[in-house]
């Protein structure tokens, strides 16, 4: 018995050692990558001077994920007294969070529907609300494109797998509108029917669609052009939907009624609509409003 427990003890220690090594290994790996990114941001001398910076919380639609760090960097460079943090989520989720009393300063919405809801609910400074960008729907394909999709017309082929947003999220609403227009103008109702029967997942966030296409788990997905632009070059292929058959999503920005940092919020708003801000948004595939 004792022999057995001794043996057990030894192998247990061995397993523990392996695990600790793994942990330390992964931590140092993460540490290394962390250092490089930090070095990048800390290169800006103005940042180190600002001892206590005012926090600025920005609720932004998930489709702004790619643009958000660049916006943050550029804004903080111009206004070093602010410490911008982005909370990125589906616009509908952000709307609900605000309605449930979440505290934020600026709301960047991918859907006028939800902006209007917050406006009528008195959650926004209604006079500050304005359009700042727009976005079109695009069809993305995995780089390998094993399904050999050449155009939107192919999307009704049997045994394809398609991902799109649910009908509650803005990208899902725009996707449906675009599909309706394409069906009405060129491809017909049976194409639409075939396309929908190929849908294997209705994602609750836009990045969910991108990931599944990226992994090659689905053959095609519907996302905003900005998401395609934000993706690492060469990882995705795209089929552009003509503007007349597309659905335009308008992005709006507004200052929250309950903000404690009105000055910083309005500075961010100005920055977003300035030439600098618009340039960044354009780089990430957003059209001007």
């Amino acid at each position, binding site marked *: 018995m004792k022999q057995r427990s001794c043996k057990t003890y030894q*192998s247990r220690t*061995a397993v523990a050692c392996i695990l600790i090594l793994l942990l330390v290994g992964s931590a140092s790996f993460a540490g290394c990558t962390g250092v490089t990114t930090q070095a990048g941001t800390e290169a800006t001398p103005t940042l180190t001077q600002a001892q206590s910076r005012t926090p600025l919380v920005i609720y932004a639609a998930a489709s702004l994920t790619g643009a958000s760090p660049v916006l943050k960097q550029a804004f903080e460079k111009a206004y070093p007294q602010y410490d911008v943090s982005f909370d990125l989520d589906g616009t*509908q989720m952000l709307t609900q969070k605000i309605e449930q009393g979440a505290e934020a300063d600026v709301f960047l919405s991918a859907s006028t529907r939800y902006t209007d809801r917050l406006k009528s609910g008195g959650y926004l400074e209604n006079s500050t609300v304005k359009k700042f960008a727009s976005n079109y729907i695009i069809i993305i394909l995995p780089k390998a494109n094993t399904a050999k999709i050449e155009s939107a017309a192919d999307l009704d082929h049997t045994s394809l797998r398609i991902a799109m947003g*649910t009908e509650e999220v803005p990208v899902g609403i725009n996707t449906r509108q675009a599909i309706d227009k394409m069906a009405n103008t060129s491809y017909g109702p049976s194409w639409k029917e075939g396309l929908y029967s190929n849908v294997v*997942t*209705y994602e*609750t966030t836009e990045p969910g669609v991108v990931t599944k296409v990226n992994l090659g788990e689905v053959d095609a997905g519907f996302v905003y052009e900005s998401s395609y632009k934000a993706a690492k070059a060469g990882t995705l292929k795209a089929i552009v939907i003509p503007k007349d058959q597309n659905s335009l999503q308008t992005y709006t920005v507004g200052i929250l009624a309950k903000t404690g940092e009105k000055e910083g919020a309005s500075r961010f708003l100005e920055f977003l609509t300035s030439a600098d801000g618009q340039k960044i948004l354009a780089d990430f595939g957003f059209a001007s409003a």
Partner: protein
Amino acid sequence: MDLSRIFASIRGAWKTPGTLAVVFGIALVGAVCFYLFAPIIALFFRTSPALFLTSLKNPVVIESLKLSLITSAAATLIAVAVGTPAAYLHSRHRYPGKEIVDVIIDLPLILPPAVAGVALLMLWGRMGLLGRYLNLLGFHVAFTTLAVVMAQLFVASPLYIRQAKELISHLDRSYEQTARTLGASTGTVFLRIVVPLIGGGLISAGITTFARALGEFGATIMFAGNLSGVTQTMPLAIYSAMQGDFETAISISIILVIISIAIMAAVRLITRRGEIHA
């Protein structure tokens, strides 16, 4: 009443360590209960019985309830059928690498479900290590109802195997050994001695496994996707409904709460019966 007397009695109570301990104890337990139970109560305040009953007719609710019950039951059955003999063989034998097997069994329990989902895709997905060969054979796993069961099984079965291991390790070996000397094969010993003796424990382990499978979200949405009637289980339906139809989200949540309470009551009942037996 005389105010100074009340004050004195409070002071007296404060001075008696027993009373103080009782008051402190009640306050502490009360705080814990409030923190854990109040959110669940709050769920019921956001809806009315009428609204709840209407949303029960909502096809999204019905479809997700049906799918959840079927897939969780399937995952539980597989976990029980495969996990019980595996736990038995594992617990009753010494073999090289046994400790590593223990770690492997426990790993999914501490793994974030989203990681589990990505990991399953990397193995069974269309571009996955195994999935790519299955794909050549025309067999798709990801984004099917099977994928839901697989995700639930991956996340929930360790819970079952762990409990089964625990039960077996506490079972006196002399029952099995006696049965062997009485001419029973390993299989007979397992089915006629081990399973009946720890049956109550196995059932409650199965029920908690079912509950875990029922609540699975992260791995499912990653590996199986979100398609009503095919892969949209109740937790996924809640999350999807949260994007717009708040009422439906609350209704499904309430159904899950009711199922959870029923599950806990069942476990209590079974373990209590088991205690009398032992």
